[in-house]
């Protein structure tokens, strides 16, 4: 059975991804990255003359940048216009497994 809901740019949303949005659930990487792709894909509104000076770095690329050398990070980010942006936004995901921590946002294993 084809459970694909939407293919958008590099992103694919499946039924289980959209279900996370409809219920009181933690959002997974697919949903988070979709929204950044959507913001980029929709482009500038008429009242947004500086839209091209905002760089949006989704969860996957942020994770990558956080785990490579600075030179590699610069190469990864170059196509996104980070170096000329007034503002660059990065989606940060961090995991903590300390027994004393509060689980603010429970995580799901990939269902793919």
């Amino acid at each position, binding site marked *: 059975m084809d459970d694909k*809901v939407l293919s*958008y740019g*590099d992103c694919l949303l499946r039924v289980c991804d*959209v279900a996370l*949005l*409809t219920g*009181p*659930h*933690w*959002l997974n*990487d697919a*949903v*988070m990255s979709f*929204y950044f792709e*959507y913001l980029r894909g929709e482009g*500038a*509104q008429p*009242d*947004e*003359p*500086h839209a091209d*000076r*905002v760089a*949006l770095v989704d*969860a*996957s*690329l942020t*994770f*990558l*940048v*956080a785990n*490579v*050398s*600075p030179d*590699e*990070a610069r190469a990864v980010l170059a196509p996104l216009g*980070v170096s000329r942006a*007034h*503002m*660059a*936004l*990065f*989606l*940060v*995901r*961090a*995991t*903590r*497994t300390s*027994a004393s*921590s*509060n*689980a*603010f*946002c*429970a*995580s799901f*294993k*990939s269902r*793919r």
Partner: protein
Amino acid sequence: MRLIQVSSVARERPSTFSLTAAPLAPPRFRSRQVNDNDDVAAAGGGSHWSLLAYLRDENAFAHFDSAGGRNDAAAARLAETLAEAFSLKNSPAFVSGRSGSPRQRNGYDCGVFALATAHAARRLVAREGASGATASRLAARVAREVTPSAVGRFRGELVETVRALAEARARERGE
């Protein structure tokens, strides 16, 4: 607003893997991102979303964290890598997620807070340019727009956006 230097909070950057092959193919790493937390069954474990903004003119990072700075260490490490990557001359300031970020009131809305914050921040700078890209303007805008009730609405609007896009695609295919 809590201003500290990046270097004072950044810890050692873990080198979990390195890139050797070119060219880079970012989507290849997506599965790795999804699977980076195999030990969620551990007591107290969990994965938390937040948003880090770099403001060029101010040479500052502003961290928006709906759990009050839980991701601060990770965000500061990222900020340190970015500062090195872009050869920032002066050590950039780092505004902690503990300072003024709107807080979630449940255990599942961190991602929606991060996205709603990104939406508000993008809109501010897209409209106003450099004059909007300051930590204080950003914090004020986010505090006003990213409230728990607004985040609840944002979640619903996101579902509608996905459905509308999917329906438009179906129409294009003639279904």
